């Protein structure tokens, strides 16, 4: 029986293909697989490239950091993996210039440093920096601006460290592996590793950090990233790199997920539409087969086999097209994206094929299986139809839609938000379409004949209008959603990094310098300089229990505990901080030993509100109670702190320093010289280079997103075409009849344009409203960016929907316009 079902299924498929019945369904499936596959492939490549890009911020793809040279077995593993390795050594040492001295963080590097990214140096302080591929020659050194200022260096100044003297001949403007803990680190002095042994600074008991930089192909790096290691070695991946970059990457990842969701939804809509049309066409044939004795089981097997065969063929074609499309697009856009894309992995294609099969099961199988229940009586009376099956079709669609979204993103929350948005849209579209049918009826009496026909068609075909507006609205929703979110993403980033984002940090400001510094800046056009106090304390007890690094199992917390905490205090909450639990103390908290903890501190110390932390400030211990939790936007480039206390909570006896940040235009470097002359102990840090790097990455992400937006647009237009194609047969018959009855082609064309403009405008309006709602939820819940209503989008959505759908409908049905009237007699 199955063999005969297979025979019938394959014959039916061949016939369906030849007659064009299955073309749309096959095309929809192939497009679904191609779209999802190519977007996933490309997204994966972009993601890999972006994470490789953050290797620029690490100086390598991976870092292995330890207090002793790497264990031989790990070195052997790295050798076996065939990755590029570059050792470097860092330690703290006092550097002398004559009588002057400063604590420096010495880094000994070998030629080839860094493996990723670039070192940028300038010949003198306050001069423009340029990238370099070299490292300090033996006997020479480069220092950062802070050390140049502290030691009053000049080009060629001899600096003594340990037993050697090195000649300083460049200012380090940017080193890729610097990290963002600048306030904790001593100024940099970079020497050649060949000078290390002679310095005599490395010996038993010395506190030295050994780092091995590693770079290699993504697969190898991925394998190394999960390898077991000993406790004494710490592995740092790009995702552990700077916090602000990590945030940017995370946000872009979510955005790309939304793009994939949109493509998935559109493809599913195309499959659903086509399958519904095919199911309708099957009904007559199934009724006839039943008259001839076919049973439901046979028909079910035959239909599912047809779908299976179609799934295999469509997925294969879609996979090939998808692979080709991503390769073509990567070639075309690789340069534009300014990203060297790694080779595409194949798994997204398998995943896309699985998604294709799921789409068939969820969206194509139900309407086709409903057709299986067509009563044989239909051969006599076409009005005999299947009833009571639509709920199952809808449920299957919703379940499959949810599963698709979840599979496409792996983010259940995002999937649920988009799915709820889509469901609400469907309901809104259906409701609005029904209302409009009623509203249009009187309207068509007062317009010209073409519009009367067009609007009349929309109004008279109530069920089909609702179905078409729903489909078109869904496609437009996805397009608008992408454009809305894209716009908001751009605006949000632009807001976060406006041109006057602080690019200079001043640290080591003493309490008695706060007011003179304010005055200094006020005289120079900075009337509102904000300064943040900071005291360094070490955590000694948590909830009254003494703690050390060993009290915490994970290495990251251990390292954090080992460092001093920077505790600041304020009565006002910075605008880039948001309270998530508890309440901000404001002025009322003054003098109380309360603590506000950021997410990082909460996660590391597993804090709960009411916990107490005892901090040791140079011998003075004070206990603070955690009264609220905060999230901090670390990519705002403003000073921020893991721990905050109210003013007066830390007694004046505790030594405190202050820090500030401000924006210094490039042509006003003289201010820095005046500052250093007036306040020699204050250190200025130029973070312009770091910001440029972040801006560059943001720019690249936006370009990647724009590319995926174009792809989503193409997928959306395909759904529109599928919806329009669904009406082709009916329209051919109608056109032939209208022409037989005397209608000229101009009238039919104008009627068609009017009909699709009304349909598109309707769908566009509802889609705009729904897109705003979904975008608002996404902005609030996922992206955490502010969002307000955009009424202009409603007008734009309506107009865009009308124009796009009218143009596409007319173009798609241009041949229908030429249907000869004699067809009515055939």
């Amino acid at each position, binding site marked *: 029986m199955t063999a005969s079902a297979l025979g019938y299924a394959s014959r039916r498929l061949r016939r369906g293909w030849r007659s064009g019945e299955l073309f749309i369904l096959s095309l929809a499936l192939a497009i679904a697989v191609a779209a999802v596959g190519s977007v996933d492939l490309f997204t994966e490549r972009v993601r890999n490239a972006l994470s490789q890009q953050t290797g620029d911020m690490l100086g390598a793809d991976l870092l292995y950091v330890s207090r002793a040279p790497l264990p031989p077995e790990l070195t052997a593993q790295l050798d076996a993996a065939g990755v590029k390795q570059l050792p470097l050594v860092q330690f703290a040492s006092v550097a002398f210039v004559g009588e002057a001295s400063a604590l420096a963080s010495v880094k000994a590097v070998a030629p080839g440093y860094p493996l990723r990214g670039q070192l940028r140096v300038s010949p003198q302080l306050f001069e423009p920096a340029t990238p370099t591929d070299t490292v300090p020659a033996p006997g020479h050194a480069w220092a950062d601006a802070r050390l140049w200022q502290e030691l009053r260096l000049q080009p060629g100044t001899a600096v003594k460290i340990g037993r050697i003297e090195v000649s300083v001949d460049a200012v380090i403007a940017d080193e890729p592996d610097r990290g963002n803990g600048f306030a904790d680190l001593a100024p940099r002095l970079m020497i050649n590793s060949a000078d290390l042994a002679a310095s005599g600074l490395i010996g038993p008991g010395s506190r030295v950090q050994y780092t091995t930089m590693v770079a290699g192909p993504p697969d190898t790096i991925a394998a190394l990233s999960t390898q077991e290691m000993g406790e004494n070695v710490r592995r740092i991946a790009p995702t552990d790199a700077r916090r602000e970059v990590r945030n940017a990457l995370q946000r872009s990842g979510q955005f790309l997920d939304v793009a994939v969701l949109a493509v998935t939804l559109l493809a599913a809509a195309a499959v659903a539409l086509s399958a519904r049309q095919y199911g309708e066409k099957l009904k007559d044939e199934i009724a006839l087969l039943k008259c001839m004795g076919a049973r439901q089981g046979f028909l079910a097997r035959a239909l599912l086999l047809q779908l299976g065969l179609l799934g295999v063929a469509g997925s294969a074609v879609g996979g090939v097209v998808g692979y080709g499309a991503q390769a073509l697009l990567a070639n075309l856009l690789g340069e534009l994206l300014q990203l060297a894309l790694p080779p595409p992995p194949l798994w997204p294609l398998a995943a896309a094929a699985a998604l294709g099969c799921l789409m068939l099961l969820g969206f194509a199988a139900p309407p086709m299986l409903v057709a299986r229940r067509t009563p044989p009586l239909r051969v006599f009376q076409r009005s005999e139809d299947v009833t009571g099956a639509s709920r199952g079709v809808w449920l299957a669609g919703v379940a499959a839609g949810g599963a698709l979204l979840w599979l496409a993103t792996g983010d259940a929350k995002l999937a649920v938000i988009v799915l709820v948005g889509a469901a609400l849209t469907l309901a809104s579209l259906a409701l609005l379409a029904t209302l409009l049918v009623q509203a249009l009826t009187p309207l068509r009496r007062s317009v010209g004949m073409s519009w*009367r*026909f067009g609007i009349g068609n929309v109004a008279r075909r109530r069920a089909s209008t609702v179905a078409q507006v729903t489909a078109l609205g869904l496609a437009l929703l996805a397009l608008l959603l992408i454009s809305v979110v894209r716009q908001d993403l751009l605006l949000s980033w632009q807001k976060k990094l406006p041109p006057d984002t602080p690019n200079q940090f001043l640290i080591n400001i003493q309490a008695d310098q706060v007011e003179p510094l304010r005055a200094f800046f006020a005289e120079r056009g900075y009337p509102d300089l904000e300064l943040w106090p900071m005291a360094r304390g070490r955590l000694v007890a948590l909830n009254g229990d003494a703690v050390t690094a060993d009290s915490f199992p994970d290495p990251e917390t251990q390292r954090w505990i080992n460092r001093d905490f920077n505790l600041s205090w304020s009565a006002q909450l910075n605008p880039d901080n948001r309270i998530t639990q508890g309440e901000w103390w404001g002025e009322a908290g003054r003098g109380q030993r309360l603590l506000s903890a950021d997410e990082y501190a909460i996660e590391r110390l597993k804090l709960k509100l009411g916990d107490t932390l005892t901090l040791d400030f140079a011998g003075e211990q004070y206990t603070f109670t955690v009264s609220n939790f905060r999230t901090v936007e670390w990519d705002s480039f403003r000073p921020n702190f893991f721990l905050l206390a109210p003013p007066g909570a830390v007694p004046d006896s505790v030594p405190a320093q202050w820090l500030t940040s401000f924006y210094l235009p490039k042509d006003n470097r003289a201010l820095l010289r005046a500052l250093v002359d007036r306040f020699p102990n204050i250190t200025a840090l130029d973070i312009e280079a770091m910001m440029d790097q972040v801006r560059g990455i943001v720019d690249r992400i936006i370009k990647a997103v724009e590319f995926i937006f174009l792809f989503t647009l193409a997928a959306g237009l395909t759904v529109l075409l599928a919806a329009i194609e669904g009406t082709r047969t009916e329209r051919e018959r109608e056109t032939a009849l209208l022409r037989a009855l005397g*209608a000229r082609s101009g009238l039919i064309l104008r009627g068609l344009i009017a009909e699709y403009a009304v349909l598109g405008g309707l769908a566009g309006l509802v889609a705009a409203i729904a897109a705003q709602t979904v975008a608002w939820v996404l902005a609030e819940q996922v992206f955490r960016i502010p969002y307000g209503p955009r009424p202009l989008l409603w007008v734009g959505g309506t107009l865009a929907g009308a124009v796009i759908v009218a143009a596409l409908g007319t173009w798609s049905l241009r041949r229908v316009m030429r249907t*000869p*009237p004699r067809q009515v007699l055939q």
Partner: protein
Amino acid sequence: MSQVSAVSARAVRKDVSSGGAMLGILTGVDLEVPAGQTLAIVGASGSGKTTLLSLLAGLDLPSAGEVWLDGKSLNGLDEDARAGLRAGRVGFVFQSFQLLAGFTALENVMLPAELAGLSDPQGRARQALDQVGLAERMTHYPHQLSGGEQQRVAIARAFCGQPSILFADEPTGNLDTATGSRIIDLLFNMNLAQSTTLILVTHDVSLAQRCDRTVTLREGTLHDC
């Protein structure tokens, strides 16, 4: 020559391509149908009756020869010009009814009057539906009507635009004998009332006998019976 004829055809040929060779469906048809006459075209299946009807109504163009509709030559007119000629002049009744599925009975009947730009198409449609006994079914869609009712709607539609010529292609072909007979009565009564020229294609001898004149299509040419 055809000034007094509703429809004329002179040496009309229609060839179609079949398997690479040209097949002559009509090989030389001459016909004159005076205004107000009722004409039945009969012939075996596949003899080309429907092809001839489509040429006479201007739905298609002949391979050779000339056709006049209401005194106007169809030769050299493009599709749109022929459509314009039909609007308000020609009505149709089809074997398969050809009602628009998304339109109610009333909306289907209104169509020709709307296309001809006649005043009050809805009033005319209501009246036509009333005449065919479907005043109570105006808001029904085609799938809610029986075959006989659908053909009555089609007849109401055919007469709603007050055409001077009516073409009917096997109007009872999809109906049982009793229903078919009632439909034909209706068709002829309305035709008589409006003095319309009726050109009818049928297999049904009794139906053909009700017409003023019957011609048989055989081997591509017409023969008077």
